[in-house]
């Protein structure tokens, strides 16, 4: 029991993921700044941001549904922190042994968005309402992309009878070659990158928040202090979870059997993962929401479906 609590609170979930995630967010800011010819914040910037927020007073808009406005962020945070406990970490952590299959992952990963939506909606700000609306539109498509990618992998790994367990998917690649080397999955990888951009709302999908041009901070516009800090932390957890998911899906590579080495390797991969997205963040301008929606419904969906079809064909022995 105590081991479980430690796994949940300290490592690999909880504190570890949180700290890693917050540093990753800072890293992202730095890389983007450097690419844009700025200096950028120090690496601990996001860390002190969060601490600062805890010292602020909480502002609640007059017409908001106060309890929802205040406590909406906890839902996404709780879901992610629980998921980080259940999900395996390649070469480092076995996972909790249950609740670590694709379906649960899909549903849990939608929860941070739901808490954005609840919080934004409850704030009674029209900016937030518009942002919520946009976030959902994006979500409709990127979730489907994610589902198609996930099911393609499940089918491929199970050779036709779907394997939904994340651990089995991971082990399959450890025993065989990682899927990142399989040409059939390259469209899916591109689609996954687009999915991550969309779900983290990096440019070109920076339409629902941090969008200074129209809705400003979007669903976060009225949030301050602790709720905002929790949203920040949720983002940190999310980027770690996405990195883990990416690795489980495509490259759960490990170096030997040593946990510490593997952990370092995992962190290294995560850093590369984040830096790659920072690069994309820096070079893209943002879509308008309708452009983003159209792009998402056409490009990543098609790419992921290509992989799905290829997988089905290969299962049937046609390629």
């Amino acid at each position, binding site marked *: 029991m105590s081991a479980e609590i430690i796994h949940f609170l300290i490592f690999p979930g909880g504190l570890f993921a949180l700290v890693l995630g917050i540093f990753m967010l800072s890293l992202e800011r730095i890389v983007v700044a450097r690419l844009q010819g700025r200096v950028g914040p120090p690496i601990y910037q996001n860390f002190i941001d969060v601490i600062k927020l805890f010292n602020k007073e909480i502002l609640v808009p007059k017409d908001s549904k106060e309890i929802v406005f205040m406590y909406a962020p906890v839902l996404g945070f709780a*879901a992610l922190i629980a998921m980080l406990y259940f999900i395996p970490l390649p070469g480092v952590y076995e996972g909790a042994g249950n609740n670590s299959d694709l379906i649960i992952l899909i549903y849990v990963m939608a929860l941070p968005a739901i808490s954005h*939506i609840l919080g934004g909606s409850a704030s009674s700000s029209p900016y937030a309402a518009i942002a919520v609306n946009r976030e959902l539109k994006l979500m409709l498509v990127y979730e489907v992309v994610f589902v198609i990618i996930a099911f393609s992998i499940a089918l491929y790994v199970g050779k036709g009878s779907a394997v939904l367990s994340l651990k089995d998917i991971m082990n399959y690649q450890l025993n065989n070659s990682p899927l990142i080397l399989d040409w059939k999955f390259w469209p899916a990888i591109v689609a996954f990158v687009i999915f991550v951009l969309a779900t983290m709302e990096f440019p070109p999908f920076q339409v629902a928040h941090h969008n200074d041009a129209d809705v400003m901070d979007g669903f976060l516009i009225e949030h301050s202090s602790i709720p905002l800090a929790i949203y920040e932390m949720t983002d940190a957890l999310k980027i770690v979870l996405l990195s883990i998911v990416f690795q489980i899906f495509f490259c759960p590579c490990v170096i030997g059997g040593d946990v510490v080495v593997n952990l370092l390797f995992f962190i290294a991969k995560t850093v590369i993962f984040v830096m790659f997205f920072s690069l994309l963040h820096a070079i893209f301008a943002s879509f308008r929401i309708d452009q983003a929606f159209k792009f998402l419904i056409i490009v990543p969906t098609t790419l992921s479906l290509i992989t799905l079809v290829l997988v089905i064909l290969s299962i049937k022995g046609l390629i």
Partner: protein
Amino acid sequence: MEGIVLLSLLIILFLKVFALINVKQVKKSFIIASTAEIFYLSLAFLGSYGLSSALLHIEYQFVFRMLALLLLFEFISFKKSELLEDLKGVAFNVWGVVFGLAIFGSLGVSLITSKQLILNTFSANNLFDFGYLVVVINLIQAVYLITVFENLVIKNGESISFVKNKLLIFLFTFASILVFVYPQLYLILPQSFSDIKTFHISFSFDTGGIRLLFGGLFGFIMLMVFLYSLDYIKRNKIFYYFALVVLTISLIEVAFSDTFESFYLFWELMTISSYLLIMHSRSDKSIGAAKIYFLMCIAGAYLLQLTFSYFYTHGIESFSEIKTINITLAVLLLLGFGVKAGIVPLHKWLPIAHPEAPSSISAPLSGILTKAGIFGIILTIYLFKFNNEIFSYLVIFLGLITLLYGEIKTLYETDLKRLLAYSTIGQIGEIITVLGLMSLSALSAALYHIINHAVVKDLLFLSAGILILSAGSRNLEDLKGIGKKMPFLAFPLGVGIFAISAFPPFGNFNSKFLMVYSSMNAHNYVVAFGLVIGAIIGFIGMLRVFKYIFLFNPHRDFEEVKGIKVFVTYFLAIISFILGIFPNEVMSFINSSIFYTLHQKVQLIPFVLHIPFSVSIMILGAFVVFFFAKKSVHAGILSALFSFLALIELSFHKFSFGIFFAILVVFMAILNFIYAARYMDHSHKPYRFFANFIIMIVGILGVVLSKDIYNMFFFWEIMGGWALYLALVHEEDDYSIREASKYLIYNYAGAGILMIGFSILLNYGIELSLLKNLTLNATLTFAVILLTIGFLMKAAQLPIRIDYQMHPKPAPTPISGYISSVMLKTGPFMLVKVFYMLIATGLLINILTINDIAHIAAIIGVVTIIMGAAFGLLTNSMKRLLIFLTVAEIGYIVAGVSLLTNEGLAGGLLHLVNHMFFKDLLFLSAGAIFYKTGIDNLNELGGIAKKMPITFGVFMVAVFSTAGVPMFSGFVSKWIIYHALMAKGYVFLAILTLLGSIMVLLVFVKFMHSAYLGKSDEKRIEKVDFYMAVPMVLLAFLNILLGIFPYVMLKPINFILTQFGLKEILITPSSITLGNDVLNTFSLAVFIILGLVVAVSMYLFKKRVRTTHIFLSGVRDLSKKDLHIKADSFYESVTELILKIIYYTKKVFGLKGGYVER
């Protein structure tokens, strides 16, 4: 020789036509017409037999025509004019009776009819074709004589008071009467040339079997008509009752007579007496209508006479002596009887005569006179020994044409009585079609239907008569809303409408089921589908009447009507009810009469109604509520109480799939009743709403507890029938009437398809468990496909016209919620029974076939999910949105149970239960908003969360359950369903299902934001009270409980799996294991809650909370309304995409336009 005869016949024809043309000159034309009879003497050229018959004919004609002529002279001298117009109504008194005797006598109504002898002469000389000419001559003469008769006797005018030449008239009257009483006197002369005594003069009656059945039916209905007439008929009573007595006697005797002679005599008397009765009002219109009736019927009768002549020359004098019959004669008989029965195209008299006749006469005209024609057709069919393909096809063809013609006509008719007449044509069509199958089971079914139709059509006409009396008009426009002002008077009409549309618990339901069964027994799909389609069309027509009478608002006053006649209609309604609930007794009676007559045994299908005890409790509850609960709160509490009693009763039963479902049904009923107790308190007639609501639940309970096909289908129709309709149209505005009617018609069509499917199964047995022993062949596969379609229709799948298949939005919310959450589940429930029982046989062929059917069902389910959710995104009405989502969510259930794996079934059933709880909760919370604000449009709502916290809380629980947030119930079932889908390899279905799930989430966010959150106007909205809060909170609790401990429900579901011979799924109190994947709901919940605790504990650091204004970039002049994002502004690009898809999909099917919000 033939040439001379033909020539003289032509001369007769010419003279008759000449007389007819000059009918205005009564005296001259009558003499000419009478003289023409002499030319029959040319028959002497065909032998002595011809001479004898011609002599007899001339004797008869002399007597009658002299009498008529004598009276005519009297009339002419009284009126001092020879013109027909001037003589109008001169004889509406005793002299008219005498004159009528003369006229009808010369038309050939007599014992040993001389016309029959003439026809026999031709037949005997192989000149059968000449007979047709004689028929034409007779017909023309009939037109002439009837024209004279109606003008002189019936029409209004000054009557003659005394006659001068009394002695002669008396003499000839006496001679005329002798024709009937002592015809031997007239035979003296003809017999001196040849022996014409070879025919029976006396009557012989065959009294038993089918004849007794018809005789009894005729007698009973006429008794009802007498009772009804007692205070209905105010004028010309002697005339009326005299004719009515003659009609009654002749009707009964027609059924009983076996010899042609007596049959023909009473057949004619029946026609004449009914002809007189139609003219009872003596208006020109009614006289014209009666004339058409009489001429058509007498033409038919002449054809019968012609046919009889063939038999006579072969020495056959009665029906029972006929051994063989050829197709020509059969067709002649069919034509002769068909006129009376009203087969299209010989139906013309029905829509003309019915509106003009007094209602007390329309009733037997439709109810039993047509049946006399059918009686004749039945005779013809069993003369064929049920074996002649050509005749069978002919009858079926005519029957179907009649059926469709009649039913389609009802759609447009505005004259209530004419509409009912068209409905009669349709029903006759049904009966004829089924008789055309020429099998014993068809005969038995048709007889049952004849009885039912006679009773119900009489009920309809008699009841319509009362309403017409009260409103003073037959037009539906004028009768509008009479049922609202005069509920006591109109009630039997409502019963009649649903009875004739074959809803249980009325007799027609049983007979229609039997008719469809017998058509499937004969493997005749055309008949089966024809019957069902005809019934649907007919039902649309009858429903229209119901709407006019009961639902539309009255715009005028009606007079009170009292007396025995009202009770007669109630009595008939009770009879129809009795015929409905004792099918087995009625059928054994019918079958024994068939055995008596034909000495052949009909296989008895054991239609026995079993009413489970819990169902009886609920029925009792419905009565108690209807009669004693006048206030909404009392009605709601009483209903809940009876449901609770039923729940207790059910809990004593051994566990089974049915009991499991039944307990859920009753449990949900209790919650909805408690909720409705408050919800309905502003509405009218709560007792009616609650009683119908209970009856609907009775239907559901009956379905799930039934053991055989009959009971299942009986309750199925109760569930989706009148009770549901009445509860749905409770608001009685145009919108709810329209929507409820659409839904009822859709249900009716679905039930029709089921009826065919079940009819096929009935050929193999009646127990539902027989499915466990069936091997699927082509026919049975077809049956299973039909059943699948029917059940999917009930579950509102098959997205073709989603606005029809969805239950209507304007219904009161508690019943909407109940339909969504419980009633629609009977579709998947029965689907599970059929599918899993058939694959439990373990036969490969069954498994393969069902697999294919189920695959398609799963695809339909998934397409429905997407479609329902997509429409949910488009609509802005709170309730319609929820209904769309219901349709979508049931798609999950269907997709799950259609997988035919233990995981699929478990997931589907768990989702069924979960959906019950969360969808009902959603409806109840939406209803709470509607109750407090009166607004249904999401665009007009906003910020309710602050004012209705409980409602908002339970709403969020339901939303989380629906969207599948972990820890809430919907998540678990969806998890299982996805696993099952993927395990089965349906990856695309799985992806679409997940897409649907996200769309559902989108829909709810729209709902949540525009109704509960965002800005609101400063209206005063109160919290919900105890009655509404308790069910909602309880349901919310169940949603969370099942999200964390699905074991509670999965345990019984595992029992069900084993009952179907499937492997249990692996469950522990805290987890579910499918393959390698473990869903530990408990630990999931624990860790999420731990996460929540961690997150919430961060709030311990909170410094201060301050209320501020929102940031608006400095803009200050916006009202709260301006700041609220309305529902229809959500998701532009998504809705655009959906609208485009709808537009192009419609284009593919050749339809214009896009999504229409109905």
